[in-house]
């Protein structure tokens, strides 16, 4: 093993020599420094490999040939090697990134950076507490030097504040060191750990050292100086500070962590959690990119501090958790800071310029995802384990705090991502695409992906199939090919996947089979419409497939981890699908925030289950016996964010309405079923608990009210897709209602509704989407009379609305009929009445939809509109055939459903005599009714036709209208606000109370953020007092 002193020798020696070189050799500085860093990295790897292969154990290295504590010693072990590798690779890439800058400045800059990184390595290795002080000071001084990379008034004042703060902090540390020496007679950390003196002075001394290191890590709220530095310094320096200095300081904390007794654990936990939540909260209001990155960085480090404080609870998972979260943060934050320097935009709204180079946008997305902890990035696994272990230790309050903090972080990160994806950038200045600046970002992007894969394997996610993800990456690389090629590939991939899993599922698990069909076959059908799009359709296919992969993973999941993994992938994919739409920026944000909130509720619930069963199998849900109400509620809320139940629905209308024409059916007809599937899983596993009955009652009411409010709101929409979106809300309300009954018939109806909703909502959204593509507006009152131009679309919508309304003989009636029987069976009369009332309200919007678009007066500007694209018509008519089949022969699917549900609820099932279904209260012969009505309808039609086949077709305005022939279709087409009278009488039901509630919440959080962050008033003197107050506050709280 190479002695770390060679690293020191190379670093310092070269640093000293750089001072010797003259001005002429300036241009070689980068190259020299780069070579030095290459050595550093080489050293790190040469340490890491033997440790990773377990050939050697941790070794102490002495200076001057004397044993510690009498000489200074360094320690090299596996984690030291890991951290050193992280730090040095950051250094190497930083040099590459700053190549030109270093060459153009005096050679001092290269020397300072070299010394800084050498120092960071030493901080990792050093085991002597005074020596650590020296290196801390050197790190601080060299940092204050590189802050001045850009010499302007901002970096001067930031650097000065940094110096002020760090001088106070290091003084505190120094006092601590000296007192430790005075009381323990040693400066050797290992000595101190094994037998620290118990006298008060010694304890206080340790406290001082610890708090000083915590202060180095910029704890909230004593961190204004750090924020100012992040904002004022060059972003590349931010990368070094956030990735390098903070990483080394964190390792320092790790080294000291064996010193923690209970009291000090609290110190770390409180400081860390406070920072995690507080920093993220104050970041919400921030719109300057670098400062925001600073907030985020500080928050993440805070979380890590808390994790170190929790070391005793995390057991052997501690290192895994800490390193995955740290690595994600490290790679992502450095990458983001570098991106910030590449595009040179300080306002986050201007980050849309990233789209000039799609590669940069993808990298940005990767970094944001890995910061938030979405799969497949390492922090996902880290956070998962963290929550599981903390829950296992019954630290539920902490879990809540961590999830809240993560959520707050997601708010601003996703807002930022949304800006980058959506906002216009045509007015913004160009930026240079320098290869030396892009390569480091790309490398870190690739590393974070690789690390995710590695972490996933470590956590024994062997069953996890990475091939679909690899396929998505492949799709990304061929993104410049025409859309139809990618469309074909995607369909083939989904088809192949279906071929792989469907036959087996059909044999083993009917429930999963049905949902798999909805997800995968439904996916294929909706993808067919994609052929209608010309051009490349960049970015569409990877994200669409991401969603489908997530959905498929949910189906296949055996463990809660796999389930959550799939759930998050699906959320991510659908987020990108949704935000692709026009004007989708805010809807995308609210979608992802609700989804993430829901996902965290699910995560917390899984944690609770793990706490009790110490198992992550999905089946362990059913054996849980404690906290049932809480677990059940959390999971239900989590899934209900996806099904958009009342109160959690506000994201849906906009998200679905603004999405692209073929995306709307994907996210409405298919995606929402993921929530339904989740609820099924939940109730199958936990429905037997007595508590479930109580919650079921509440869920039933929520479902019923959702149905009512959704339908009423749909009736008052003028935008066709919004109308359908509200309709989806209410349909999902029915499903929730059916599920909540937890009886055979209730589940039958929920299942029937799920299948039917998939069919008719796909038809309606595809058709309306296709119409919108042709007419160029969503507003129904701007259409009208299109039946003559678009007969195909009209027929599709007609069948769709009849099926949706539940009018016999089409398939929707099956659900209504089952409902009646189920509610009487369950005694849920009032909820049931609300559901039926809302079912009738559906006629209002269904009529409005078909009438306003297809009937009435054709507008002048639409006279030449053609029928919908054949690529839309094909999937639509395939689905119509599906509806017709299950309408004519409902027993085809009702019987297998009944068999399946009998497995869960054997009582109250339907009995069949041929096509006649007998329920406890009623009976119904689906095919008989279909035949009767069919024959009668045909006869009557023939009769009327025989009587009036010679009827003369008249022109559009040939109507009896106050003895005038109207000339303008706009004035004659009654559509806008046609239910005004109805609104007057019961419009209060759809008053936007939930919208108001959530917007008030949002405003409130923002005001708190805006008020709170004023503590960072920019004055270095105040920052010094903050530091002292922080220290004293902890002292008096902990010690007294």
């Amino acid at each position, binding site marked *: 093993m190479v002695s770390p002193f060679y690293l020191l020798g190379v670093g310092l020696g070269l640093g000293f020599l750089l001072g010797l070189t003259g001005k002429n050799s300036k241009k070689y500085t980068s190259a020299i420094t780069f070579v030095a860093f290459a050595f550093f990295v080489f050293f790190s790897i040469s340490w890491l490999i033997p440790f990773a292969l377990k050939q050697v154990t941790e070794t102490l290295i002495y200076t001057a040939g004397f044993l510690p504590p009498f000489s200074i010693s360094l320690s090299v072990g596996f984690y030291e090697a890991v951290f050193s590798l992280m730090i040095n690779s950051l250094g190497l890439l930083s040099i590459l990134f700053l190549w030109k800058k270093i060459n153009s400045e005096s050679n001092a800059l290269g020397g300072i950076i070299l010394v800084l990184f050498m120092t960071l390595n030493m901080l990792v290795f050093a085991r002597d507490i005074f020596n650590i002080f020296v290196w801390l000071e050197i790190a601080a001084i060299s940092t204050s030097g590189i802050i001045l990379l850009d*010499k302007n*008034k901002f970096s*001067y004042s930031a650097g000065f504040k940094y110096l002020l703060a760090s*001088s106070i902090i290091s003084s505190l540390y120094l006092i601590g060191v*000296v007192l430790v020496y005075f009381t323990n007679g040693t400066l050797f950390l290992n000595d101190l750990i094994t037998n620290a003196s118990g006298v008060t002075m010694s304890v206080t001394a340790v406290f001082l050292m610890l708090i000083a290191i915590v202060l180095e890590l910029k704890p909230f709220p004593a961190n204004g100086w750090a924020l100012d530095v992040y904002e004022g310094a060059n972003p590349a320096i931010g990368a070094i500070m956030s990735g390098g200095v903070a990483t080394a300081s964190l390792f320092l904390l790790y080294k000291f962590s064996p010193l923690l007794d209970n009291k000090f654990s609290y110190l770390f936990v409180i400081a860390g959690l406070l920072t995690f939540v507080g920093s993220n909260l104050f970041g919400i209001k921030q719109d300057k990119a670098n400062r925001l990155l600073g907030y985020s960085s500080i928050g993440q480090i805070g979380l890590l501090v808390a994790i170190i404080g929790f070391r005793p609870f995390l057991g052997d998972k501690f290192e895994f958790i800490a390193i995955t979260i740290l690595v994600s943060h490290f790679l992502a934050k450095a990458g983001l800071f570098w991106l910030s320097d590449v595009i040179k935009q300080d306002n986050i709204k201007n980050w849309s310029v990233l789209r000039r180079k799609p590669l940069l946008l993808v990298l940005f997305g990767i970094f944001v995802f890995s910061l938030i902890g979405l799969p497949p990035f390492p922090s996902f696994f880290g956070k998962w384990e963290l929550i599981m272990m903390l829950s296992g230790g019954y630290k539920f309050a902490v879990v809540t705090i961590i999830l809240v903090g993560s959520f707050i972080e997601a708010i601003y990160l996703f807002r930022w991502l949304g800006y980058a994806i959506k906002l216009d950038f045509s007015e913004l200045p160009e930026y240079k695409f320098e290869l030396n600046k892009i390569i480091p970002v790309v490398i870190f992007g690739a590393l974070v992906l690789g690390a995710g894969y590695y972490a996933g394997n470590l956590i024994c996610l062997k069953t996890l199939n990475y091939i679909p993800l690899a396929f998505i990456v492949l799709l990304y690389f061929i993104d410049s090919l025409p859309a139809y090629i990618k469309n074909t590939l995607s369909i083939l991939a989904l088809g192949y996947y279906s071929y792989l899993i469907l036959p087996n599922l059909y044999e083993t698990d009917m429930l999963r089979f049905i949902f798999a069909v909805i997800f995968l076959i439904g996916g294929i059908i909706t993808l067919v419409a994609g052929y209608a799009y010309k051009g490349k359709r960049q970015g569409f296919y990877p994200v669409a497939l991401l969603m489908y992969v997530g959905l498929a993973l949910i189906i296949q999941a055996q463990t809660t981890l796999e389930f959550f993994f799939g759930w998050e992938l699906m959320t991510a994919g659908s987020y990108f699908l949704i935000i692709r739409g026009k004007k989708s920026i805010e809807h995308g944000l609210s979608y992802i925030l609700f989804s993430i909130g829901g996902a965290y509720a699910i995560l917390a619930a899984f944690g609770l289950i793990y706490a009790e069963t110490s198992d992550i199998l999905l089946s362990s849900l059913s054996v849980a016996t404690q906290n049932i109400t809480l677990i059940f509620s959390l999971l239900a809320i989590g899934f209900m964010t996806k099904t958009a139940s009342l109160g959690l629905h506000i994201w849906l209308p906009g998200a679905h309405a603004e999405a692209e024409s073929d995306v709307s059916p994907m996210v409405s007809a298919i995606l929402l079923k993921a929530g339904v599937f989740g609820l099924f899983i939940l109730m199958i596993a936990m429905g037997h608990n007595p508590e479930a009955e109580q919650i079921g009652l509440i869920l039933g009411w929520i479902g019923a009210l959702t149905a009512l409010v959704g339908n009423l709101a749909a009736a008052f929409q003028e935008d066709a897709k919004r109308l359908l979106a509200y309709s989806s809300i209410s349909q999902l309300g029915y499903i929730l209602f059916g599920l909540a009954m937890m009886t055979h018939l209730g589940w039958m109806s929920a299942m029937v509704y799920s299948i039917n909703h998939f069919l008719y909502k796909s038809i309606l959204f595809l058709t309306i989407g296709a119409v919108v593509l042709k007419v160029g507006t969503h507003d129904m009152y701007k259409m009208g009379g299109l039946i003559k131009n678009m007969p195909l679309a009209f027929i599709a919508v007609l069948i769709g609305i009849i099926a949706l309304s539940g009018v016999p003989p089409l398939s929707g009636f099956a659900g209504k009929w089952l409902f009646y029987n189920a509610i009487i069976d369950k005694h849920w009369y009032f909820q049931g009445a609300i559901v039926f009332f809302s079912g009738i309200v559906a006629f209002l919007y269904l009529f409005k939809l078909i009438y306003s678009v297809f009937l009435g007066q054709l507008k002048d500007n639409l006279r030449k509109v053609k029928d919908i694209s054949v690529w839309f018509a094909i999937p639509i008519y395939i689905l119509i055939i599906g509806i017709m089949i299950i309408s004519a022969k409902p027993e085809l699917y009702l019987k297998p459903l009944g068999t399946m549900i009998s497995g869960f609820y054997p009582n109250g099932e339907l009995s069949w005599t041929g096509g006649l279904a007998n329920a406890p209260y009623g009976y119904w012969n689906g095919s008989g009714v279909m035949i009767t009505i069919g024959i009668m309808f045909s006869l009557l039609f023939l009769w009327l036709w025989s009587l009036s086949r010679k009827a003369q077709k008249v022109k559009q305005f040939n109507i009896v209208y106050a003895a005038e022939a109207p000339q303008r279709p706009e004035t004659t087409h009654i559509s806008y606000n046609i239910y005004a009278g109805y609104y007057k009488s019961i419009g209060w039901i759809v008053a936007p109370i939930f919208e108001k509630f959530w917007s008030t919440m949002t405003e409130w959080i923002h005001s708190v953020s805006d008020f709170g*962050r004023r503590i960072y008033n*920019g*004055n270095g*003197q105040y920052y010094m007092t903050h530091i002292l107050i922080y220290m004293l506050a902890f002292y008096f709280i902990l010690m007294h």
Partner: protein
Amino acid sequence: MTITIDKIALFLGIVLMLIGLYGAFSLKSIIRIILSLSIFDTGINVLIVSLGYLKGRTAPIIDGDKVTVENIFNVAIDPVPQALVLTAIVIGFGVTALMLVYALKLYQSKKTLDINQFSDLKW
């Protein structure tokens, strides 16, 4: 409690620290803040040295007269704080120098040394 020299030094060191802190927190001129921090540092250094004191002993330098190889164990004080304080002083010097240069540049950027004027970055 007897008053010994180390206690006086200790007290003096703490007083210096307090004075330095108060100055650093209350004065408005950047130069004065730097000087106050310097005083604070000095206080700490005094404190360090006083902690190495042993009653009635002398410096750990073998001069062959008072202190010899044989008796150094019994007559010399603890050498470690002295070594540490040396390092601390030098580091303090480096930081102070750096701060002063910063002050110079700050002055050049705004023609003032009032710390309140340098809060462009905030929130």
